[in-house]
């Protein structure tokens, strides 16, 4: 099997690039598998890969209703970080960060993980204390963190307006230097290729339309390409979680679907070397390798499955961009889009066995599940393979809400659109 390398690129180029093989096969579904993963997003594909690579379970199918990576993996703002406050989240996301650091090698696919740092700006003394609280939590949890003072910020981001036009000067920032961005689509493709190579069937254009039940136990799925049986069925469908579980008779979950928009400008030469977030609102910016400035802000704030947003958020986000970077006012918005997010009631994820026998659930990623992809796949595979949560996802249970063990990073309570 041709492995990817610089040498191969040159060899193939000499052959007119005629000999490259498909990244994944296009198999027809088999009647039955050991494990079915519903959802060909980052998490579903990673889960399939780790089932095969960590647990030797290769008789696995990933069922994707559209084209692979058409969900949130294909539309996120690509930020990878582990700067969490709560220890449960910190441990999980830091594990993910470590996996990211070797992911391209592991997959033999360059996912372009660029550890250019993320800086959360703060603007008031109270915010500075909060930043210190978080930064100290990170260091005590073994995560890298440092304070960045305005002088350094000015040097690293010459276009940044430290004074702020309206009463919120930049007092400093909390940086996680190891954080950064990755090429979102490549993560899906890289996992798909690696899983395929280990025997996993990746089946596109195969929508799950129902569950086959034996009593309460889930034993298979109805799909647009026929019924498929499996001993275990993992659901990793992000924004579609409620819709899919409703097919199994679960009519309510601690999840709401909300749309988050993202934006990219026309490309320009490198002008922003790290990821930055604004503390005077809700905004994060980075620059893609192609040169576009990529922004995100608040979710639109109402239940939606529409994958597109509305104008007020567009205005808010652009207002914040030019507040921080008044030099960018003349740059131009090229494209905006939306994704449907699985907002959980405390803003933290769910990776668990259940809620029905034979079923496993991976959901509740809000707007932060891209960075989780490796650890999520790893833990979900563990949970499916062993029927026990991995210590890293033990806290991400479904019953934590009812028991009062919520993991509420933002302290917003059960108002999912505020997380």
């Amino acid at each position: 099997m041709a492995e990817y390398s610089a040498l191969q690129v040159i060899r193939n180029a000499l052959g007119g690039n005629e000999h490259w093989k498909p990244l994944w096969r296009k198999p027809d579904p088999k009647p039955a598998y050991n494990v079915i993963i519903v959802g060909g997003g980052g998490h579903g594909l990673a889960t399939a890969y780790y089932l095969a690579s960590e647990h030797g379970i290769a008789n696995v199918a990933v069922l994707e209703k559209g084209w692979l990576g058409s969900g949130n993996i294909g539309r996120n703002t690509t930020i990878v970080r582990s700067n969490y406050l709560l220890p449960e989240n910190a441990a999980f996301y830091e594990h993910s960060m470590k996996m990211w650091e070797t992911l391209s090698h592991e997959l033999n696919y360059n996912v372009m993980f660029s550890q250019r740092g993320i800086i959360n700006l703060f603007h008031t003394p109270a915010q500075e204390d909060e930043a210190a609280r978080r930064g100290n939590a990170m260091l005590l949890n073994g995560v890298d963190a440092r304070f960045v003072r305005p002088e350094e910020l000015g040097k690293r981001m010459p276009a940044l307006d430290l004074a702020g036009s309206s009463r919120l000067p930049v007092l400093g920032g909390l940086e996680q230097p190891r954080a950064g961005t990755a090429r979102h689509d490549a993560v899906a493709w890289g996992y798909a290729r690696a899983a395929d190579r280990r025997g996993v069937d990746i089946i596109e254009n195969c929508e799950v339309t129902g569950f086959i039940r034996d009593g309460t136990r889930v034993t298979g799925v109805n799909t647009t390409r026929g019924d498929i049986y499996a001993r275990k069925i993992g659901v990793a469908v992000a924004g579609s979680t409620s819709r899919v579980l409703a097919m199994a008779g679960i009519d309510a979950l601690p999840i709401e679907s909300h749309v988050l928009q993202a934006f990219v400008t026309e490309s320009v030469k490198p002008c922003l070397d790290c990821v930055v977030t604004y503390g005077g609102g809700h905004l994060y910016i980075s620059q893609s390798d192609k040169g576009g400035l990529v922004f995100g802000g608040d979710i639109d704030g109402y239940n939606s499955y529409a994958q597109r947003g509305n104008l007020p958020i567009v205005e808010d986000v652009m207002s914040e961009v030019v507040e921080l970077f008044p030099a960018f006012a003349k740059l131009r918005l090229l494209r905006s889009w939306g994704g449907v997010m699985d907002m959980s009631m405390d803003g933290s994820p769910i990776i668990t066995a259940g809620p029905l026998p034979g079923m496993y659930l991976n959901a509740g990623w809000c707007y932060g599940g891209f960075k989780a992809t490796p650890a999520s796949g790893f833990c979900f595979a563990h949970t499916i393979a062993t029927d026990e949560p991995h210590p890293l996802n033990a806290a991400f249970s479904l019953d934590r809400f009812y028991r009062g063990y919520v993991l509420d990073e933002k302290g917003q309570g059960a108002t999912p659109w505020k997380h």
Partner: protein
Amino acid sequence: MIIPCPFCGPRDLAEFTYHGDAARAAARPAHGSTDQEAWDRHVYDRRNPAGSHAEIWQHAGGCRSHLRVVRDTRTHEITETTLYAPEVSQ
């Protein structure tokens, strides 16, 4: 999005704040209820349907009324807006 407030007329989304599923609000356990499971469900569980959704919005940047808005979560199309009255949602 433009929401037709029954009192103010059509107004921009930016004037409204969201309060979620109207059916959930209507099904809130009675004040003083000690049915823990009912409270768990009420506080944490959501139907989150794809399709028609009766929901509550407050015209916070206008008349501050609470509205019951029937909206399709797949298309954002609004088919019904009334001032919120608890009976309607039951």
